[in-house]
């Protein structure tokens, strides 16, 4: 749930140490896997979410494990967790306990529903976060059940908020010397999207699931071409005029002046969209995109992952950067989406293999090799 927050911080250049139980994090057991072969070092999900972190193993439930964790906390600025509410306290690692060891620590906890409230104890797999936050209700084909987003977007999206909270708290700590605890709810993060609360409670509008059809204007939807689909978005009357100009033999009824305002076109969506389809089917998605954009009409192809990777626009701008991994080989992966002074941040590096940095990090904490062996024998690390 919280791994993407650590990934964001690692991509921004922080030294992030992932603490895993001795048997390995559960995400190591989730696919997709390299070559579709399950294996603790072959999960691509784990590789993405933990790229650039260092990794140690530690049994937080053992008294010695807790003591080591607190020594690590003493040397850290930030503590990030995604345990169910109350679990960190039970482990002796609650915010109050962390503060005793590191007075200006910044702790952040991400959970499905937050640290308090009547549903704080509810379980929150990603699909529950998407549905309880409202986004799922407006996702998918109206003739079929609502559909979840790809990957685990409710977790990822919450984690962007977590990272924002952390950098703001760091800025404030630099100025005041005071740390903080940040409590982030996955449900609330998703519920910030799409004005659903205000539209229902104030405007009296109930948004319904309607594919990608925009609610205020049309043509603003997915349209078929010879070899796939495009998304065409027309709002301003000027763009509508331009479309009709490019489409020289368009049906006469589309010239009606009452179709100029977007909301009037939206009311006629069942008449307009099928006519637009007759036009879009004449072209490939590439041809149509070029033709419309040359005339200033917003339109882009609906890319599959392979299409996106092949786009010259994407290749030229270096979103994907190389990583060298001992277990996965050399591969290209998404880099932080912001350039700083024209430069991409370097790919933060591969995800840690299980216990990869035990020797280095425990040695920094003053644990000698013999002591580390003893801890390993007792399965604390």
């Amino acid at each position, binding site marked *: 749930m919280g791994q993407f927050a650590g990934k964001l911080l690692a991509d921004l250049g922080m030294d992030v140490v992932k603490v895993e139980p001795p048997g390995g994090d559960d995400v190591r057991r989730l696919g997709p896997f390299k070559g579709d072969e399950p294996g603790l070092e072959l999960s*691509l999900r784990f*590789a993405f979410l933990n790229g650039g972190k260092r990794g140690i193993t530690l049994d937080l439930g053992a008294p010695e494990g807790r003591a080591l964790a607190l020594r690590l906390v003493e040397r850290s600025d930030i503590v990030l967790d995604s345990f169910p509410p109350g679990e960190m306290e039970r482990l002796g690692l609650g915010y109050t306990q962390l503060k005793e060891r590191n007075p200006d620590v910044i702790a952040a906890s991400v959970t499905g529903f937050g*640290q*308090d*409230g009547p*549903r704080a104890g509810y*379980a929150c*797999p990603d*699909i529950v976060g998407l549905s*309880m936050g*409202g986004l799922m209700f407006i*996702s*998918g*084909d109206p003739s079929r*059940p609502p*559909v979840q*987003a790809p*990957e685990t*977007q409710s977790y990822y999206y919450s984690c*962007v*908020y977590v990272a*924002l909270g952390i950098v703001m*708290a760091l*800025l404030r700590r630099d100025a*005041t010397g005071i740390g903080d605890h*940040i*409590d982030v*709810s996955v*449900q609330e*993060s998703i*519920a*910030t999207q*799409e004005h659903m609360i205000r539209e229902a409670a*104030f405007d009296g*509008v109930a*948004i319904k699931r309607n*594919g*990608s059809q*925009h*609610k205020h204007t049309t043509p603003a939807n997915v349209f078929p071409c010879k070899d796939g*689909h495009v*998304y065409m978005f027309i*709002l301003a009357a000027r763009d509508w005029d331009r479309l009709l100009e490019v489409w020289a033999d368009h049906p006469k009824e589309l010239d009606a002046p009452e179709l100029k305002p977007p909301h009037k076109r939206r009311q006629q969506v069942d008449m307009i969209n099928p006519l637009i389809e007759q036009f879009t089917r004449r072209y490939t998605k590439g041809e149509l995109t070029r033709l419309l954009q040359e005339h200033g009409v917003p339109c*882009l192809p*609906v890319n*599959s*992952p392979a299409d*996106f*990777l092949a786009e*010259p*626009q994407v290749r*030229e701008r270096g979103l*994907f950067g190389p990583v060298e991994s001992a277990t996965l080989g050399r591969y290209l*992966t*998404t*880099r932080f*989406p*912001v350039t*700083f*002074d024209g430069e991409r941040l370097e790919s933060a590096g591969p995800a840690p293999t299980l216990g990869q940095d035990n020797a280095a990090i425990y040695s920094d904490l003053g644990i000698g090799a013999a002591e580390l062996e003893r801890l390993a024998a007792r399965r604390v690390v």
Partner: protein
Amino acid sequence: MTSFLTGIRVVSLTTGIAGPNAARMLATYGAEVFKIESRVGGLDAFRAYGDNPEASPRFIEVNLNTLSVTINLKEPRGVALVRELILKSDVVMENFRPGVATRLGLGPESLRGEKPALIYMRMPGLGSTGPLSGYGTWGPTLTAYSGFTYLWNHPGQDRPVGSQGVYPDYLTGVMAPLAVVAALLERRRTGTGSLLDMAQVDAAAYLLGTTYLDAVVNHRNPQPIGNDSPSAAPHGCYRCRGEERWCVIAVESEEQWRTLCRIMGEPALATDPRFGSIDLRRQHAGDLDAIIGAWTAERDPHDIMSALQEAGVPAGVVQTGSDLAVDPQLVARGFIERVEHPVLGEIPMAGLPLHFAGAAHEPFRSPPPLGADNRYAVCDLLGYTAEQLAQWETEQVVY
């Protein structure tokens, strides 16, 4: 209590959702944010939703806590004033099409040349460089371009359908302030600002990182999986009693499966060999979903969620906006905000998901009437006289 961004001044040249939401986030956490618009062809596009540009609920929600200054960028004197204001600020955010700011004389090269400590954030749709950087984009076109629309579907649909939402906009609204605050941290150490450039489509694709790794490492083109999960079964969305009522159920262990069977009143299912493991249940997903769907169809989704969650089985209601507005969890945590507006009265809306033990966001404030902060910006900050301001207003420079 010190706000996080007290003393940080921001000039926002943004319109729509993504840029305004990013600027509003900084304002909500204490920054002083000047939103620049003009009555001469320079109003935010969202003011057009509704009859009164001063009372568009949609505009209000994404521009909370900002100040309003009207300056006409079609007049050279107007551009000069905005430039002066930016040079007295810490951050400028813009989402013009690439090249427009530079043509106006507000580009990062000249501004940062004069003030190296300035943080300049731009948020173009497809990027500031590359063969398609000049293309016109809106949120849903970027959702399509990034791969999201293709993947956000049930399997086997002949036409990708996707979501009605504009995910890249909402992502930019949080990712851009993250980058700005990271740059503020960096500036505290180095004294130097940065030029931050975030293509909204890159932000979206970044959140498909596992999919793109699968494509690159396994040389395949990942396809939509609908409501499937490799690690849970049942895992899906089921019709409930009532019009367009749905719940989700996600069973991640054998213990949860046995509990679900018990609550459904079907204990025999727990020993049915077709359903003896997650893998078997995924193989027989059609039979499984039919049995569960028959049970949920006669029940209220909130009752289903409570019964299952209280017994430890992950479940949720596919909530509508009306559900969210009265959700006891959201209400108990103070997430439903009520914002006063002089024309519209009290507007309920979503709050923010960050709860700090030792701090809070600023109380939500409606953006003020257009140009309400002209005097503060032009006279108090830039030092011009009231007479000069009045003249510029007459000449439609400050307008």
